[in-house]
């Protein structure tokens, strides 16, 4: 401990850490703990009634299922986009690169009404899709579309830097040892990208699970069919069922914490992997 203390040449340790802990407790930790404290006062039966009723279970299935599919779609197309941005020259590349972050910057409500306008029955895309039997707006498919929109930058932005830092020598070695291009990509490049791809997948999935604004406009919000779990919480709140809303929120929070731990693990794996490659 003495050795550690001797390092503190710089001023402001007490002030910065003290402020940090006080602010974080006040804004984040104490309010979040309210969810678990209130949940712990519920009886087991009341808790189960709130979190395991058929309507709520249907919402978990939609929320987690659509988030999983959206994250998978984003892994495929996010990798293609990251590959194009790093490896190829094409006109408009800087614009594409800048706009990839649009879902981070565009308010979710704006994305929600815009996607709905595109996919509604008389919308830009909906008018061509509905006649061939593809209904997107106000169905679970609409939820998927919104979650794909919201998750795309997570995959691109985790894969892109790793791809940029990838040493060309690895691929040169593979090529000189007789591997064709496809073998090189599949056996050499993709395994190096795997931690970044998994991190991007987990980030996109975690974001999608909690997403609200972009989804509710396009989902139609039919109970049992296109109702996401965050909306269940809102509905319960509007019916003054604070305890029920809190119980469902505690389930979502536990899911978030588990995802956060997984993401932290994946990120440190990814960092170690790319550090070793240098």
């Amino acid at each position, binding site marked *: 401990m003495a050795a550690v203390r001797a390092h503190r040449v710089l001023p402001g340790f007490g002030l910065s850490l003290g402020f940090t802990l006080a602010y974080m407790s006040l*804004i984040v930790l104490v309010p979040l703990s309210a969810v678990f404290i209130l949940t712990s006062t519920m009886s087991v039966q009341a808790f189960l009634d709130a979190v395991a009723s058929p309507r709520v279970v249907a919402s978990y299935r939609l929320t987690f299922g659509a988030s999983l599919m959206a994250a998978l779609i984003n892994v495929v197309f996010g990798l293609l986009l990251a590959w194009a941005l790093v490896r190829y*020259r094409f006109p408009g590349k800087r614009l594409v690169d800048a706009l990839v972050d649009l879902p981070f910057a565009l308010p979710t409500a704006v994305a929600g009404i815009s996607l709905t306008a595109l996919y509604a029955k008389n919308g830009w895309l909906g008018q061509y899709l509905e006649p061939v039997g593809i209904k997107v707006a106000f169905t679970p498919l609409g939820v998927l579309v919104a979650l794909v929109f919201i998750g795309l930058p997570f995959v691109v932005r985790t894969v892109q830097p790793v791809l940029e830092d990838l040493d060309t020598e690895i691929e040169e070695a593979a090529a000189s040892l007789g591997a064709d291009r496809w073998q090189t990509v599949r056996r050499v490049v993709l395994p190096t990208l795997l931690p970044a791809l998994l991190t991007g997948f987990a*980030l996109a999935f975690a974001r999608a699970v909690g997403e609200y604004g972009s989804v509710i406009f396009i989902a139609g919000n039919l109970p049992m069919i296109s109702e996401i779990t965050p909306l269940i919480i809102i509905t319960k709140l509007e019916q003054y069922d604070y305890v029920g809303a809190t119980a469902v929120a505690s389930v979502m929070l536990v899911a978030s914490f588990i995802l956060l731990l997984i993401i932290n693990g994946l990120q440190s794996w990814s960092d170690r992997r790319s550090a070793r490659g240098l």
Partner: protein
Amino acid sequence: MATAAVGLRAGAARFEANTATRDPVWVKGLVLFLGLAFFSLFLLLPLIAVFVEAFRRGWGVYIAALVEPDAVSAIKLTLLTAAIAVPLNLVFGIAVAWAITKFDFRGKQMLITFIDLPFSVSPVVAGLIYVLVFGAQGWFGPWLGEHGIKVIFAVPGIVLATVFVTFPFVARELIPLMQAQGRDEEEAALVLGASGWQMFRKVTLPNIKWALLYGVILCNARAMGEFGAVSVVSGHIRGLTNTMPLHVEILYNEYQFAAAFAVASLLATLALVTLAIKTYVEWKAAPSTPPAEAP
């Protein structure tokens, strides 16, 4: 979320010039076609749709939707909320980054994990927790009621929820950068006789200014655009507790589509300005960048 210095640093030319890393033309064509088609369908088209729908019924309707009193008060409230939330999280970001990167202490890793918590919590849950603490049925509800202080369904609740969802932005841009910069420069400044404040202003601040600006603009974009968390605590009182995103929702649900998209187009413009500044900052923050190859 993305780290600061993602750019097109090295340029694609070196990959395309090298036979070992060059993809066949048909592969390049296919990847570009699929990637860009996906990009256009999911990112570009929704962005264009906002502006086209906003102007569908002409400039008159567009302007009218923005100068209408409820819209003006929503714009004012959004600006006020960001003006409080962003500086608070800026100060927090600097404080936590200073503590984490300049000192060694136990529990540091846990602290870093806690910073990210608000990003992994659903915005709806973020709103709910303040209802549980400050709402009429909440922990401090009765006390606040007796003293005539309204937090939930009022401006303080909106600010609190916004502070929560934008909590990590500045901190997570600063921490990796300050970690990489180490402590030597600050220690040298102190040895040479600088006061703590001089050291911070003349050494630390110039070193972190681009990351700081980057964190602030992302924080601001989210603060002005937050919907879910604010929706829970706002109560949707027109002219009083409606922010711009909530105003968009109300107009949309009343089938006033042109007006909804008009207000939405302001928010979309804010997003585009944010992305433009972000691109500029990335370009400034990476001075070693060779000029990008001509397209």
